[in-house]
């Protein structure tokens, strides 16, 4: 395992080095003083600091860079969820696909299992072997094992744990608004805990999964310091959007944001 992950890392560094011969830069994770953060590797940079873990969504970093330098052509080391996020950013007109090159990285079976990921690989895999899809059964299990009263009590307890750190929003690769409804005093009282049930968490869910943007990267759930099982809520909205409007986030480049819910 250790050996294979080293091999994977070497292969990614090689792919990035090759891409930097033609591109202005490549977005990937970089470690500095034991801190890992998104980084733009430019031609000539030492790729020794490039790492793959811990996983962090990179799509919005691409958006930020291209927003300031629209003429640049940059690459990104993208897992399946990163690539799907980029597709949604294209559709929402936040990133110009002609200026992005995806260096596809397939997740390992262990990573796929940890994320309960249905598609743990990008459409074109440059590094790694595509792992098998993992079924996410949390929503079905939740609905099957709890009565209505138990579900209400469950969510009241879960949302009451929220300390309003906004980590779920800040990590989300599809939260790109300049002005966030989760900070709008009309909906959310400032400086008050516990947060309003269920509006606070529904705004986040409806504005991402409900708007057809959630690519199931699970970053919000992994980032939540209170361990709120957000993916149950997001799975439901993904299902509603797929069944009701035939839309699956990240599946298709349409060039336009889908009109249905919002909030």
């Amino acid at each position: 395992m250790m050996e294979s992950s080293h091999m994977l890392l070497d292969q990614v560094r090689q792919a990035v080095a090759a891409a930097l011969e033609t591109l202005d830069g490549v977005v990937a994770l970089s470690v500095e003083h034991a801190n890992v953060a998104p980084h733009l590797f430019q031609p000539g940079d030492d790729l020794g600091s490039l790492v793959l873990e811990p996983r962090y969504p990179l799509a919005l970093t691409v958006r930020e860079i291209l927003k300031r330098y629209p003429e640049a052509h940059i690459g990104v080391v993208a897992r399946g969820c990163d690539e799907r996020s980029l597709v949604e950013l294209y559709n929402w007109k936040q990133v110009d696909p002609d200026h992005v090159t995806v260096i596809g990285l397939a997740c390992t079976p262990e990573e796929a299992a940890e994320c309960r990921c249905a598609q743990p690989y990008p459409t074109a895999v440059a590094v790694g072997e595509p792992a098998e899809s993992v079924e996410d059964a949390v929503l079905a299990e939740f609905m099957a094992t709890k009565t209505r009263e138990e579900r209400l009590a469950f969510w009241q307890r879960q949302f009451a744990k929220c300390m309003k750190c906004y980590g779920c929003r800040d990590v989300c690769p599809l939260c790109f608004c300049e002005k966030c409804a989760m900070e709008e005093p009309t909906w959310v009282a400032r400086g008050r805990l516990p947060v309003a049930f269920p509006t606070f968490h529904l705004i986040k869910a409806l504005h991402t999964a409900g708007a057809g943007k959630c690519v199931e990267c699970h970053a919000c759930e992994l980032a939540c310091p209170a361990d709120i099982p957000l993916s149950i809520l997001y799975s439901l909205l993904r299902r509603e959007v797929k069944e009701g409007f035939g839309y699956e986030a990240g599946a298709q480049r349409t060039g336009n944001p889908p009109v249905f819910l919002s909030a």
Partner: protein
Amino acid sequence: MIKSQRLDHGFVEEILAEPGGEHLLTCWSCGTCAATCLVRRYEPAFNPRLVLRRAGLGMREAVLSSAEVWQCSACDACYPRCPKQIHISDVMKAIRNIAIREGYERPGAAARVDTESCIACGLCAAACPYEAIHIEEVASKEVASNGTGKLAAQVDANLCMGCGICNSVCLSSSISVEGISDQVVSQDIAALRRQPARGALAIVCNWCLHATTDWDVAQNPPPGVRVVNVPCSGRVTPTFLTTALMQGYDAVLVVGCKTDECHYKHGNALEQGRAEVVGGLLDLLGLEPERVQFAWIGALDRGRFPALLDKLAADANALAPVHWGDTPGYRGEVPAYPSAATAPRGEG
């Protein structure tokens, strides 16, 4: 006093030549249109008979400069009742086209964009029933390395009908219509909440109640029920509904027009989609399906609205209060909150 030398027959000819304006002179001035006009509920001064009469007399200035030619919202409630079968909204549209050509502007509230927070995703433009919104470069301090400026949505005020659908889809509410912004509607909802805390709320589209008797019930709803009007059910986002619950209403009802009868082309279809999703969310969160209800009313549903409100009031009474946490505008009694400390292990 109308002076004959100030009448302009050329204006009449101009309207007759404009697509939609052909039938201007067939009007008898019987007033049936005014008697059935839904706009008159909100704009008592509006009278389609008078607009057609003045236009037919050639009162160019009086007609083009009036607010009335812009007030017709093309609901066509008058059309099937007109004994001369004049498509009055088309005549209005013809007159408006002339007004736009002569430089008159639509008065009243059109959608406005906060260009600072707009991210130019184009969702509002895609959702607008009137193609009144376009993405354009706007003046801003934000300039990219290649000199391109900031893009943002821009509204053609002459095409905007003020339905608020753009606002309902905008994730950051960067576009809004005066009078039906998030703040105004949610304040209306909060201000109308009954004392004591419990009660029910109906958010009703301006156009679905055709019968005057139903409209009277909306003005004087049964005890325990409050009615808030919005131009279109498509303006109502799920956030309004959950916020209303948290503000102390035990049940909320959204009333819109029937499929294919939307006043703003597809606002009700948008809301019907939301209704499905809200139903799924209520089920997931363990809230009773009666908490948030939707109903679609057409011209032939006379008398259904009062029955809906009675059922809403009864449902609200039967539902147990829920703790909604700390909410802006919440003034009700706070039931005991299940404590995190008593949660079964593994759920913590």
